[in-house]
C-alpha cells in the first residue's frame, strides 16, 4: 500500500445529475430581502440559509435499496439516495430512526457489529463497496464521530498517525510536517495550535478536539466525509466554526452529516434526507424539504420541531 499518496479523487460529471437550479438558494439576497422569494408553506422562516448554491455537483456514492438488520430488528429499511460531491447532504430524523446505522454502513463500519446484516448495495464511483478492501475504502470514506475522540497523543501525532503506513512510526516528522499542517489548515485549526503541535490532543477544548478529528479525517485525503452529529457536544461558537468549515469542504469532498439540529441542517445542507423508523420518508433539497415538504410526516417533524 502507498500510504502517502492516496489515489486522487476521480471527479466525473454525471450527465443524469443536473446541476441544481439556482432558485434553491435563500441566503443570497436577490431582491435585498433575503428569503422573501421562498415559499412559506412550512412556515420555516426561523433560520436563513447562509450559503450559496453549489457550484457543481457530482454523484459519488449511490445507496441502493439498502436494508440493515441488527439480528431480527430492521434498523434501515430499503433506503436509496445519492451522495454528491459539491453538496452537503444532511440526514435528519427522530432518535433511533437509523441515521447512524446508515452513515456507518457507508464505510463498512457496521460490519464491526457482529449482529449487523446489510442487504442492497452501496456504490462508490460505481464500484460496490463490498468489493473494496475495507482499509482502502475507509481512507476514501472517512468519518467523524459524535464524541470528540482524538487519540491520546500529541496534536501532530494524531494527524501523522493517519499519514503513516499502518503500524509504522518510521516516517520522519519533518517529512510529514507539510501534510500535517495542511490538514490542520483545512480544518481551520492550524492558527490555534501551530505553536504547540506537541501539546497533548486530549487537553484541547472540545471544539478544537472536534476540529482535530475533522483534520484527521481529512488527512487521509478522503472523497467522502461522514459526520455523525459532530456538533452535539459543542458550544454555539465552535458549532458555527465547524459549520463554516463543512460548507467550505463540500467542493473537495462529498459531505454527509447526521444532525438533530434542524436549524443546522437548514443552514448548511443542500439536500436533506428525512428518516423515520428506518424508512427514508423524504429526500429533497433543503429549501423544499423545510419550506414545502412533499410528505405529511416530514411536515409534522419539521414544524413540530420549530413550534
Amino acid at each position, binding site marked *: 500500500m502507498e500510504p502517502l499518496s492516496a489515489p486522487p479523487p476521480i471527479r466525473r460529471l454525471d450527465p443524469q445529475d443536473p446541476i441544481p437550479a439556482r432558485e434553491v438558494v435563500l441566503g443570497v439576497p436577490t431582491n435585498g430581502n433575503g428569503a422573501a422569494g421562498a415559499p412559506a408553506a412550512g412556515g420555516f422562516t426561523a433560520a436563513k440559509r447562509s450559503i450559496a448554491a453549489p457550484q457543481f455537483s457530482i454523484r459519488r456514492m449511490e445507496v441502493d435499496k439498502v436494508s440493515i438488520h441488527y439480528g431480527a430488528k430492521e434498523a434501515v429499511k430499503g433506503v436509496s439516495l445519492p451522495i454528491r460531491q459539491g453538496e452537503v447532504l444532511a440526514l435528519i430524523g427522530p432518535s433511533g430512526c437509523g441515521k447512524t446505522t446508515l452513515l456507518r454502513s457507508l464505510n463498512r463500519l457496521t460490519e464491526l457489529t457482529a449482529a449487523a446484516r446489510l442487504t442492497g448495495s452501496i456504490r462508490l464511483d460505481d464500484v460496490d463497496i463490498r468489493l473494496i478492501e475495507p482499509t482502502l475504502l475507509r481512507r476514501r470514506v472517512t468519518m467523524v*464521530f459524535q464524541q470528540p475522540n482524538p487519540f*491520546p497523543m500529541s496534536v501532530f501525532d494524531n494527524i501523522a498517525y*493517519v499519514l503513516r503506513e*499502518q*503500524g509504522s512510526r518510521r516516517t520522519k516528522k519533518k517529512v510529514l510536517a507539510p501534510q500535517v499542517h495542511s490538514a490542520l489548515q483545512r480544518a481551520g485549526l492550524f492558527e490555534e495550535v501551530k505553536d504547540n503541535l506537541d501539546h*497533548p490532543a*486530549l487537553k484541547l477544548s472540545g471544539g478544537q478536539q472536534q476540529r482535530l*478529528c475533522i483534520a484527521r*479525517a481529512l488527512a487521509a485525503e478522503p472523497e467522502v466525509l461522514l459526520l455523525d452529529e459532530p456538533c452535539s457536544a459543542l458550544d454555539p461558537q465552535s458549532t458555527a466554526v465547524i459549520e463554516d468549515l463543512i460548507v467550505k469542504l463540500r467542493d473537495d469532498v462529498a459531505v454527509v452529516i447526521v444532525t438533530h439540529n434542524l436549524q443546522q441542517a437548514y443552514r448548511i445542507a443542500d439536500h436533506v434526507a428525512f428518516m423515520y423508523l428506518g424508512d427514508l420518508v423524504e429526500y429533497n433539497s433543503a429549501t423544499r424539504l423545510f419550506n414545502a415538504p412533499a410528505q405529511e410526516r416530514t411536515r409534522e417533524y419539521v414544524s413540530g420541531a420549530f413550534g
Partner: protein
Amino acid sequence: MAPSVATPPPERPQAAPPQGKAPTKAVEGSSTWSMLDRIGLAFCWALGLLFCAIAVAIVVYLFLQGVKFLKLDQLTTPAATGFSETETGGFSDALIGTIIVAVMGISLALPVGIAIAVWLVEYGRPAPLARVTELTIEAIAGIPSIVLALFGTVIFSSTALGFLSRSNEGVVFGRSFFAAAAMLSLVALPLVVASTRQGLESIPRHVREASYAVGKTKAATIRRILLPTARPQVATGMILGLGRIIGDTAIILVLLGATQNFAPVEGAVFPFDYLRGAGTTLTNFVYEASPTGNLNQPQKAYAAAFVLLLMVLGLNAAADLVHRRARKAGTWSH
C-alpha cells in the same frame, strides 16, 4: 407554556442564622443523619484509622529495624556457613536470586498476559473459547502457589525438560531458576491479564472506530492506539505481578531448591549454569534467618525484609509515575 408574568416563588421558611459567630460556609453535617448511619460512619472511621495505624506501624517498624541492622556489605557478600553473626556473611545471593526470578518471571508473564488480554477484549471469538480462557485464568489466580509448585515439580522433573535443571545419571533434579520462574510467571499472569483487560475495556468503542475509520487495520490500532493508552494499567498489572513474584515463598522452596547460595551446574555455559542450578531469594532468606529458620539471626531477617520492602515501594513509585504521566495526556470526556 411558561406564564407570561412570572409569579414570585412562595416564601420559604428560613432557618434563623445561629447567633454569635457568623457562618462562613454551609456544609452537610452528620447531625442530620439517622442514628444507624451515624454509628456506621463512626465504625468506618474507626476501622479505617485502625488499618492505617497497623500499616504505618509495620512500615515504620521495618524501617527502623532495617536501618538499624542493614549493613551495606550484606548486599555484596553471599551467605556462608559459620557460627557467629560475623561469619555467616550477608545475603547477596538471595538479593540477586530475587532479581533473577522477578525479571524472568515477569518477562514470561507480561507478553503472554498482554496477548491474552488483547485477544479477549479485541477478538474474543469464538465465544466459547474466550469463556474457557477466562475461566482458566481465573482458576490459575485461585490456585495456591504451593499447588502450582507441586505441579511444577512434575513438569520439570520430566526427562524432556532435563536441560532446564540439573540431571544426574538420567534423574532430573527439576529445581532451578528456570523451573521457579516459569511457575512464578503463572502467579503473575492473572494480574497482568486482569489489569490489561481493564485498561483496554476502559477505552470507548468510538476511539477504536475512529482509527478504523481512517483506514487503519486492527493490528495497527492495537499497537499504536490501544496498548499505548492502556499502558498505565499494564504497568499496574506488571507491578502487582512483580510484587507477587518477589513475595512468593512456596514456589521458591519447592522449585528453586532454596539452597543457601547459588548452586550452578558445572560444565554449562554462563549464564545457563546459574539459571539451571538451584538458588535462593530474599523471602527464603528472611524465613531462614527468622527464629524458626535454620540460620536464626533475626537481625539479618530484618535487614533482608527491609530490602524487600524498599523494592516493593520502588515498584509502587514507578507505577505511580506511569499513571501520573498518563493523566497528563488527558482522557476522553466520559
